[in-house]
């Protein structure tokens, strides 16, 4: 993949940052407004898909190499599981116990603030990392689709 024309590249150079920021916003405010980790992760993946389509594979490889995306996928999954397991340290309720809220934030009146809801924003970030990285990996795997033995290999 070589990328598209100069106009598309120039527009992409500005728009990709806005899409990325919107994904971060949707993820971080998932416990206050509609959205959440899954939608935010898909929007993050969309910004990198736009980068790959407009600038070509090499530009995307500089920004987010395939190996780094695979690692981010694993980090997201493990962070989610670790957040759930950390609840076990705080007794009774155990797995998925919202210890950050119940132990540290419950008596501070944090409702409707960005720093509230304990483990929910952490889980949102973990899911966004996981979903974004894995959907970008799927896009890379499918966009390198080779039709048959006789056709030229895209790179």
């Amino acid at each position, binding site marked *: 993949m070589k990328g598209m024309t100069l106009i598309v590249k120039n527009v992409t150079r500005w728009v990709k940052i806005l899409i990325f920021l919107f994904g971060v916003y949707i993820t971080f405010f998932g416990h206050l407004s509609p959205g959440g980790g899954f939608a935010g992760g*898909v929007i993050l993946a969309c910004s990198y898909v736009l980068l790959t389509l407009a600038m070509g594979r090499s530009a995307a490889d500089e920004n987010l190499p395939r190996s780094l995306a695979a690692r981010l996928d694993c980090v997201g999954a493990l962070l989610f599981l670790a957040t759930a397991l950390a609840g076990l340290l705080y007794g009774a309720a155990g797995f998925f116990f919202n210890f950050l809220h119940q132990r540290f934030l419950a008596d501070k009146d944090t409702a409707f603030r960005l720093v509230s809801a304990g483990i929910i924003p952490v889980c949102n970030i973990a899911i966004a990392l996981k979903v974004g990285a894995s959907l970008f990996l799927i896009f890379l795997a499918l966009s390198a689709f080779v039709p048959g033995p006789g056709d030229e290999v895209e790179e």
Partner: protein
Amino acid sequence: MLIFYVLLAFVLIAALIAVETKDLLSSVICLGAAGFGGALMFLFLYAPDIAITQVVVEVLSLIILIRVTLSRDITTISGEREFFAVVVSVVLLASVFLAGTQIFTQFPEFGAPLFATASPETHASQYYVQNGLEQTGAANAVAAIILDYRGYDTLGEATVLFTSILGASVLLRKKARIGREDRP
């Protein structure tokens, strides 16, 4: 109420065209249209969380499918449908539909959801709405439910996604393809 029938008709027509058309690109675009109709229905049902997710997933899958379609040489669907497969599908769908109509009779009336009428002693939904903010601190009740009360389900979903991505990237990686082509 009328808007839902209009959107439902739109989704049904788009789905029928997607199944019946011979052109692969038209089929993919009609699939996207059906998805966006569903997203609009979620929006009119006051479910913005699901609507946002549906729209972004639909956009990404449409991009991937169009890209895959354009990179193929043959973009038309050919071949006859097998008689046996059609009969089996129709019988299975009819039985699922009949079982579904039995369930629909027990649903609450449209526009009167359970969490607005049920008592907190008997139904968990009302309990979540009343105690969600105090117990989890999350202003968004949907986030409170899917990541706190029902976090175990979300972990299962994340595991399913992880496994499917693992399988897809193993099957689609370049090394596997080259190895297959070199084999006699």
